């Protein structure tokens, strides 16, 4: 440094000679300031990624320097997120690079009291051995005389936080092994969405995409804490609001979502069907429905069989109810003239094996099949276009909701008539040719014993208002995990094969032909190509071994005999039938209903494999779980062998997440995982290799599906499988190996292979379409060149309905796609969800079948009559129209019918899973308050990715419960202090938050208090607390086996819960007072 420079760098010199005589600006600038550069400036590379938390799917830029991630921030190119991130996304640097992630494999030997070190390779071999041995030991070739070819000794849980490719390998390997109990978070979060939207419209995904909310004129958020659980998606609600839209939030709590809404409507938890049914009644009786739309695109005019009886006729039951089996003969609800064949091999999909509970098809999750194709109706139906026939759907619907008056809504929901009518006014004023309204919901709707019917109610309403398939209209099912949509599409679910093909059932689906006859062959629509989708899937899994001669290896698939959902698995673990368990990024000891039963199940396992970032509660319950504290068992008593594998983060692997828009977004690997951390892709692939090695020489026929499985994936230099190769397999190819462009190219003759037919096209032209990153700012609001959406890159489903019967947009303001008569094709802003050259006036010939049978106005192309279903003549197990039933645990009778609760709900009475006394019984007031659970912005689901992350934990450091000042006074609770909440299942303690945001409601002439509890906490991690799910029971929706955790009853008392055995004694003392037995609450 020269003398001159040295002098000039002296601040006093600069002060005296420069323009800063006071020395408070440039003269004071130090060397540190001179040299300051953002650490992103000299990053070696910027890798395009996707946020791993919720399903908004925000774009992330990952900055890498010297093979270390140095910064993660929003990707401004993403049309979904526009560069923004919520606190969780903003904390992903700490999540992925912080010290809370485990780096080494841990092993707990049976009856061990602590973890031991184990090298990765040995651990993998041990797990492979456990799988092979348990499979051998528990193999079932037959069940009740029918071939099932499976093992019920092994189960797997988790997938929604993983990539689609990882889900694909999990399902593929387990299916080949005969493991049917494969489940993920979608079961406990959004399975009702699939059945609800699927039966209504033909596909089980959100009908719209988040960005399109900006075009809405009215947005009703109900059953969702949108602003808190999906903050970045909420920007589109704010955009709509800025453009003048009315935002309504219907929720038991006043949350951060309500704070930004124009109208907040407090509602009693568990009564949304009554509320929405009330709006349906208002729309029908006041004539506010969109007549042209209803007549053109819904089944309003279809005549229903004269065997049908409504809940109005049977006091809360539909026709066909069997009280002994507690389920319905759904043939009593079908369209007139549609025969439900009883001949073997051609039975209705919902055939019920009355004599054999074991072979219960109705409980095998068939309603989820409607995720990509509507329920099957095999004949043409009769219509009355005037809508006057008393047996037409329109009139039946009108009668069904006649008694859902504003007064009844007030009586059931606690919503004053004026407030209710205000909602009706906003909604109907903003639903017509020129205006559209959207509904946004999440698990506040899905997690009920009538969850699927909640979604159905909104679907009916949106069809009546003409809001489906139109810009700014639709139903947004807000998904909560990065790929929970993907883990339903490429399902790690027991009842589904990829693309919502049903898992074959043992009853009658032993060969491909009878399978397709039993669950396919609709009168019309694209589901009629189901055989092509199935054969192509079998070709993807078993390659050249799958031939026409061997039924394309259809016999290799294990068979269902009823419900094998995650809750059935827990009961099977408690019974000792399920012995091995994989947890793939899911934490059931916190996230699933009845945490105690979850742990009791795991305590009865032979072996448990946990793959996660940190030592979650489901990995350590044997050591420090609540039952150890309450002295119910000691670690030495527990024989479960536990393997913990540290998982790779999203920055350490490539693959696709499918977000809530049904958009597959590719994220690139930024760095290699360190230590023993591996992707789930690596884990499943390696596990498959080891098992295949062990079984290579076997001549046992049950090992052939494993031996012949296509498993030769190219590996990257570090041994990680090439995710793009797996996505190519999912996309599919023709006989020459050329990637397919669309699912319409799939054939049933074995010439095409496709791992998931709805994802066919994601590798169109051999290009990874999911990796397209054309900036949103360079595209219109559809942003069709950003990533790829199923099906066929269509962003708004059923968009044929955005044009009138003649193919003209309903209004210029709401145009989306339209018929271009000159060119003879559908065109517009979005890709038409319709056959491109089928004219609006096209009418099929009488004998037409399948796709041919779709007319030019059958906008719902997956439905077997081409219509949106106001009335579901098939597809659901608990009724063709939603009916208000009270929750399982409720303080109130049902004022509408003698039937109080859903008559077909699934119950699992057991000493670990007791229910509360019926309303009106003398003991009912032992648990007098209504409880609902929810998420807060600062945490993520069961907390595995947030409670360990200090930047998030400090923002919400404690488990709390929210109560009104009135309830606090009634029970002597003080703000900031502790309270104990008790149910028949367990007792938990939480900090008390007394707030006006919880309002007592007046229901049936008395005041009801509600308690709000976030469910993120558990005893492990940096921020700890009791888990709200300890309080829950397993009471399930009969269609999809989702648990009711959004409405239940409990008592609350001041102070902390007892320690040690006192906790159980407290729970027992309540049970005694309430005279609870295993049969309590299991009646009507």
């Amino acid at each position, binding site marked *: 440094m020269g003398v001159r420079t040295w002098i000039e760098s002296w601040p006093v010199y600069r002060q005296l000679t420069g*323009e800063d005589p006071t020395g*408070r600006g440039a003269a*004071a600038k130090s060397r540190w*300031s001179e040299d300051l550069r953002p*650490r992103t400036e000299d990053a070696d590379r910027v890798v395009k990624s996707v946020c791993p938390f919720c399903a908004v799917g925000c774009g992330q830029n990952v900055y890498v320097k010297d093979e270390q991630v140095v910064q993660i*921030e929003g990707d401004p190119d993403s049309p979904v997120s526009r560069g923004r*991130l919520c606190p969780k996304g903003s904390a992903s640097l700490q999540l992925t690079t912080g010290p809370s992630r485990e780096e080494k494999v841990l092993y707990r030997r049976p009856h061990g009291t602590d973890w031991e070190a184990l090298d990765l390779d040995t651990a993998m071999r041990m797990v492979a051995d456990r799988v092979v041995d348990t499979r051998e030991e528990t193999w079932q070739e037959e069940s009740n005389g029918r071939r099932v070819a499976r093992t019920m000794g092994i189960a797997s849980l988790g997938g929604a936080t993983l990539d689609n490719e990882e889900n694909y390998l999990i399902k593929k390997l387990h299916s080949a092994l005969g493991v049917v109990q494969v489940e993920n978070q979608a079961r406990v979060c959004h399975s009702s969405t699939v059945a609800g939207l699927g039966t209504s419209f033909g596909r089980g995904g959100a009908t719209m995409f988040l960005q399109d909310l900006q075009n809405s004129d009215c947005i009703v958020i109900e059953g969702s804490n949108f602003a808190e659980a999906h903050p970045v998606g909420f920007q589109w609600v704010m955009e709509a609001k800025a453009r003048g839209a009315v935002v309504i939030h219907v929720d038991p709590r006043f949350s951060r979502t309500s704070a930004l809404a124009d109208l907040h409507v407090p509602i009693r938890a568990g009564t949304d069907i009554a509320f929405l049914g009330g709006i349906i009644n208002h729309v029908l009786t006041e004539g506010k429905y969109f007549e042209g739309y209803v007549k053109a695109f819904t089944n309003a005019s279809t005549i229903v069989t004269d065997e049908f009886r409504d809940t109005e006729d049977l006091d809360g039951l539909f026709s066909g109810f069997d009280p002994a089996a507690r389920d319905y003969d759904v043939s009593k609800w079908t369209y007139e003239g549609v025969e439900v064949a009883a001949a073997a091999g051609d039975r209705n999909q919902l055939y019920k094996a009355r004599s054999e509970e074991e072979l219960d098809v109705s409980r095998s999750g068939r309603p989820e099949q409607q995720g990509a194709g509507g329920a099957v109706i095999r004949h043409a139906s009769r219509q009355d276009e005037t809508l006057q026939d008393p047996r037409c759907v329109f009139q039946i619907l009108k009668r069904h909701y006649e008694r859902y008056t504003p007064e009844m809504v007030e009586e059931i929901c606690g919503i004053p008539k004026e407030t209710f009518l205000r909602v009706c006014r906003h909604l109907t004023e903003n639903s017509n040719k020129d205006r559209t309204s959207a509904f946004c919901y999440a698990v506040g709707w899905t997690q009920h014993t009538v969850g699927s019917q909640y979604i159905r109610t909104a679907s009916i309403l949106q069809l009546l208002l003409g809001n489906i398939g139109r810009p700014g209209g639709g139903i947004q099912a807000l998904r909560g995990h990065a790929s929970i949509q993907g883990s339903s599409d490429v399902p790690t679910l027991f009842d589904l094969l990829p693309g919502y093909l049903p898992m074959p059932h043992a009853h009658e689906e032993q060969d491909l032909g009878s399978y397709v006859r039993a669950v396919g062959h609709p009168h019309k629509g694209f589901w009629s190509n189901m055989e092509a989708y199935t054969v192509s899937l079998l070709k993807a899994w078993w390659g050249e071994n799958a031939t026409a001669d061997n039924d394309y290896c259809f016999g290799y698939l294990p068979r269902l005999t009823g419900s094998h959902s995650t809750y059935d698995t827990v009961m099977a673990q408690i019974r000792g039938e399920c012995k091995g368990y994989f947890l793939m990024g899911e934490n059931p000891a916190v996230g699933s209903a009845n945490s105690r039963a979850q742990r009791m199940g795991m305590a009865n396992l032979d072996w448990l494999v946990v793959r996660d970032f940190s030592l979650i509660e489901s990995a350590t319950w044997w050591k420090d779980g609540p039952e150890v504290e309450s002295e119910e068992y000691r670690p030495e008593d527990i024989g479960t062998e536990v393997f913990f594998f540290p998982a790779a983060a999203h920055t350490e692997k490539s693959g696709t997440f499918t977000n809530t828009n049904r958009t597959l977004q590719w994220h690139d690997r930024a760095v290699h995982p360190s230590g023993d951390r591996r992707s789930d892709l690596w884990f499943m692939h390696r596990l498959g290799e080891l098992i295949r090695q062990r079984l290579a020489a076997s001549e046992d026929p049950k090992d052939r599906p494993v031996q012949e499985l296509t498993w030769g994936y190219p590996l990257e230099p570090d041994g990680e499988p090439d995710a793009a190769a797996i996505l190519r397999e999912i996309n599919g190819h023709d006989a020459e190996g050329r990637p397919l462009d669309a699912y319409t190219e799939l054939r049933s003759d074995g010439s095409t292979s496709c791992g998931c037919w709805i994802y066919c096209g994601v590798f169109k032209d051999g290009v990874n379409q999911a990796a397209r990153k054309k900036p949103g700012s360079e595209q219109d609001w559809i942003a069709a060149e950003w990533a790829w959406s199923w099906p066929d890159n269509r962003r708004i489903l059923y968009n044929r309905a955005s044009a009138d019967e003649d193919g003209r947009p309903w209004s210029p303001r709401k145009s989306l796609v339209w018929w271009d008569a000159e060119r003879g094709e559908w065109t517009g802003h979005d890709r038409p969800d319709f056959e491109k050259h089928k004219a609006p006036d096209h009418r099929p010939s009488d004998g037409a079948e399948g796709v041919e049978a779709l007319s030019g106005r059958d906008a719902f192309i997956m439905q077997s009559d081409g219509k949106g279903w106001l009335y579901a003549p098939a597809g659901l197990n608990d009724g063709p129209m939603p009916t208000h039933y009270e929750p399982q645990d409720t303080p109130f009778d049902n004022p509408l019918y003698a039937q109080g609760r859903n008559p077909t709900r699934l119950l699992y009475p057991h000493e670990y899973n007791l229910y509360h006394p019926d309303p009106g019984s003398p003991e009912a007031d032992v648990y007098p308050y209504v409880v609902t659970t929810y998420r807060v*912005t600062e945490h993520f689901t069961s907390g595995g990715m947030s409670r360990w992350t200090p930047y998030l934990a400090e923002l919400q450091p404690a488990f*709390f419960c929210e109560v009104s000042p009135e309830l606090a006074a009634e029970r002597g609770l003080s703000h900031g202090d502790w309270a104990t909440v008790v149910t028949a299942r367990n007792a938990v303690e939480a900090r008390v938050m007394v707030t006006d945001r919880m309002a007592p409601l007046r229901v049936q002439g008395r005041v009801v208090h509600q308690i709000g509890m976030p469910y993120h906490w558990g005893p492990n991690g940096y921020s700890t607390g009791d888990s709200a799910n300890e309080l829950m029971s397993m009471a399930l929706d009969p269609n999809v086996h989702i648990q009711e955790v959004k409405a239940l009853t409990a008592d609350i008392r001041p102070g902390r819960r007892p320690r040690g055995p006192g906790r159980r004694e407290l729970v027992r003392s309540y049970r005694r007072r309430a005279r609870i037995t295993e049969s309590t609450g299991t009646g009507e």
Partner: protein
Amino acid sequence: MNVSTDSGAEQPRLGFFTDTSVCIGCKACEVACKEWNMVPEDGLDFTGMSFDNTGGLSADTWRHVAFVEQREPLAHQETGLGRRDTVDLGMPSFELPGASAAPEERGEFRWLMSSDVCKHCTHAACVDVCPTGALFHTEFDTVVVQQDICNGCGYCIPACPYGVIDRREDDGRAWKCTLCYDRVGDGLEPACAKACPTDSIQFGDLDELRERAAQRLEDLHGAGVSSARLYGEDPDDGVGGNGAFFLLLDEPEVYGLPPDPVVTTRDLPSMWRHAGAAAVVMLAGVAATFLGGRK
């Protein structure tokens, strides 16, 4: 005050406009700030102050989201909660608690959220009192502590009229928002503004932000939200206007902000003048005493 850059081109003053009327209280700003600036996590403390478990700005919190629950109506918002216009006289009730809990009796309620930050004052007392030159006005007219200079004397802490700047326990130096000095120098947005999901935090040229804020205020007033007001945008206020200003929906005190902040060094010149005058008078008196003594 505009400061010339090295290139000689006029560098417009940069700042934040935080529009609290669209804040969803997600705290992305708090986290994004901590991630970028590597600010330490500062403990698990359940405060019970609504959803605010941060407490306030400090050396380890450079963005802080306040949550205010009020029994006040927000125009055009109908909440069906809160008790309307009833004054609790503390008299014993003859009703069960909550018995008269119908929403029409409870009236309106609102939940305000606001992300607070260093105001980057035009007349920054912290800079004035800093004896080492660690605090300075950057070329963007933001106020930054230079960590290579700061000696931890702490004079700046009582000088700040907003209570923003604070000393970090373990290293003793003063820390606060730098308006991401490193990022803006490279043409990037500050981390908080970039993350903000609803654009409640806007970053840019201060003049442009002021125009935008005036427009937003007009819109809100037009929509009947008469309680909306700007805070810190006025160049004639006690600190010469803030580089980070706000649109609030209530009095500043409600959010924990001083209603009429004044740069604490405002009176320094006159204090020095008075001290000087006093010294002169004293000297004159002493001199007079001596001179008088000779007589």
